């Protein structure tokens, strides 16, 4: 991935990077791009609503455009962000109190990296051609991000939701004490 793809535009600050790219490429108009974003958001919203409708997510709501809140794997709500500008989906501040470069942080990064592994069955793997996993740690709060390529938003939602599920299964196995302390998850 080119480094400048994610750089803020130096001119035309009112344009998002996606819009700027569109303008530069000359293929899409801004209006078209806004329409595309609306369509992308609609796909994301509908994909999430499937989980809410099936009872996987509870207390599901769109607290502002493109920002969703719901209760899922723990008793506490999580925040899911659709970021058209960055072409990414994000579980914001998913895991609190994880020190950067701690053993848990390192283990988590290793686990996430393994999600691309060719040895994983295809239905469990994240396809690098379609999405890229990013794990950020700001002030001890880990956010899980999926950078979505080629507007594959439905794929992105499905993969990120499944990814977070697998992260919590992994934590239940490796970090039972952490889950008990931070999420009131029973140490059964």
């Amino acid at each position, binding site marked *: 991935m080119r480094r400048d793809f994610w750089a803020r535009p130096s001119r035309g600050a009112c344009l998002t990077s996606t819009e700027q790219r569109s303008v530069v490429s000359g293929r899409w108009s801004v209006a078209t791009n806004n329409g595309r974003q609306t369509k992308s958001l609609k796909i994301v919203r509908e994909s999430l609503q499937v989980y809410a409708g099936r009872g996987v997510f509870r207390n599901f709501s769109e607290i502002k455009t493109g920002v969703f809140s719901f209760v899922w794997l723990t008793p506490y709500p999580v925040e899911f962000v659709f970021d058209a500008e960055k072409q990414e989906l994000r579980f914001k501040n998913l895991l609190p109190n994880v020190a950067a470069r701690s053993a848990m942080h390192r283990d988590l990064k290793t686990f996430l990296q393994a999600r691309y592994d060719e040895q994983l069955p295809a239905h*469990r793997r994240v396809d690098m051609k379609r999405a890229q996993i990013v794990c950020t740690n700001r002030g001890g709060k880990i956010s899980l991000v999926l950078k979505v390529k080629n507007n594959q938003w439905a794929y992105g939602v499905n993969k990120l939701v499944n990814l977070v599920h697998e992260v919590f299964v992994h934590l*239940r*196995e490796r970090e039972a004490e952490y889950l008990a302390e931070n999420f009131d998850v029973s140490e059964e």
Partner: protein
Amino acid sequence: MGKSNGSKQKSSETEAQPDLSRRNFIARAAIGAGVAATLGAGKASASDAERPIKIPDEFALARDAAPVKVAFPMNGAQVFARMCKEEGLAALFCCPGNYSVINAIAQEGIPAYSGRHEGAMCHAADAFIRVTGEIAATSGTEGPGFSDMICAIAAANAARTPLLVLASNMSIQQEDTESGIQLQYQQPATEGLKKYGKRLLTPSRLSEYTAYAFRQLRSGVPRPVHIDFPSEVYRAQFKTAADLTYYYDKSRYRTDSKPHPAPKDIRAAVEMLKQAQRPMIVSSNGVFYSRAWDALKSLAEKAQIPVAESGAMKGQFSDASPLSANAAPAALASADVVLLVGQYCMPTVGEFAFGPDAKYIRIDPAPEDIGRNLPIDIGIVSCERAALEALFNEMPAVKRDAWVAEIAAARKKFEDELDVIYKQGLGYTDAVHPAVIAKELGDFLYRGKIPKEQTTVVSGGYGIARYVRRWLRGYRPGQIMNGAYQYGAIGPDVGYAIGVAAAVRHGISVQKPYQGHPIVCVTGDAGFGYTAMEMETLAKYRLPVIVIVYNNNAWGTWNGNRANPVTLSMHLFQENVRYDKVGEALGAHGEYVTRAQDFRPALERAYQIAVKESRPSVINCQAKKEFWLRENAPGFLGKTEPGCMSYFH
């Protein structure tokens, strides 16, 4: 120590000599274990040997006695016992108290065991049921005995056990008076912990309410039934059956007919299973209680659907099958359709390892529970066996080679991880690591001289459970009794062992082929502390139980407090406590294991004693609490496997 039985004052030198006094014997029994351990004086003195622990002859007399034939006129206790016998009540576990009722039950020829604590004996009854599928009763005396049972009733309730709880309750006439002692209004105390309860008030309705009790115990989703007996009822005299209202054969007051599934529900489920690429069955309590293991196996094999087990007992689906997904946790998140069969205690979203896209079909005899906690896609109200048979009949044969291969790969991955853990455990030489206990026990039970399906195991403990359960396997129904299960009580394990050993001794139900064989109980030092006195019960009944105590000198909670000097000591015990000596003092064989290489020989010796002498053992495995720290790899393991990542549901 003061004066001996005589009036002569003894010097300390004199006291060091062998002394045959009863006082000295009792004093030694009380403090001897610790002192002996400290001094390294494990051998009994000559004077002790003259007073060996002895099982009274009355035990043999009781064992050989024929049931007492009772006919009208009968008292209330006898009428109740007669109905229990006709209902097939398989055993009674109690402490003295509720005398008329327990005596009447024993005299009917129903195996009756008496222990040291009502709670432990209630746990025993729970365990007996969980490895046989038959109904057992527990009993305690008024107030205190009954209230001792509360934790065990709650554990049985969480495990959905059809446990018959009996307790005497003084008299109706004394109610609310506080006259004498031990009065308690019992039924509110079991509120929320039972399926049905009744204080019997009208003597002539005794048989009617006994019928209520057995209807509840033998239908739908089972849970405890609590009946309490005032003296006006159990002492009431009945000249003939005509003195009782509704006294007739059980075929008149209940039915063995079971709810069968609606054909449209079966068709919908078959369609979903046909469409699925990676379906999985979760087999739980209901498969055991409806004896549906053959139907389960037939369906799984015909449709190539892997099976993971959950629930209060395990072994309904053999781990020897390539379709067993118990030890394949990495594959669980791949399942796209999950068929839940008899999963009475339902996890909430996220507790199972199945992924967010998995669809759920749930088979359960209780429509009011279907959809609770975990949203469903298809609900089938039915007896589990009837539904599995119907699915087998409707389901076409399906090949799912890729899915079965994924299960096999996940199983291999899990086994490889276990090998790594074991090798890490072997690296510790200053104490016995739990991985060593778990691996060596697994090798002994399944890969040694004993047929792998032979030994029934009480799988208890807390920290040690996280290791042992990874190596435990089930090869036939009723082989693994899943400890305290969802209620999460610490300490029932030795009590459970009484019930399981009794079931195996008598060859009840699915334990028949393994009648008389030793059983294994795994527990921790914290848990052993609650019910250790029941080693005496095991010893006096000569129940061949090998109790493995994982002794890490601490509650399982200690590591959460390790950084807090104010609170840490609340989570610790004395170090190197000699639980083996406690066992010896109570009539069991004792082993103290401090090195990894000594565990297997100790296990072999204990097993031989169980076989040859039918005597219980305590294998005290000296560990250290620091094994739970992350820096001491593999540390404290998280989810308890194998299973479906919600082991306690």
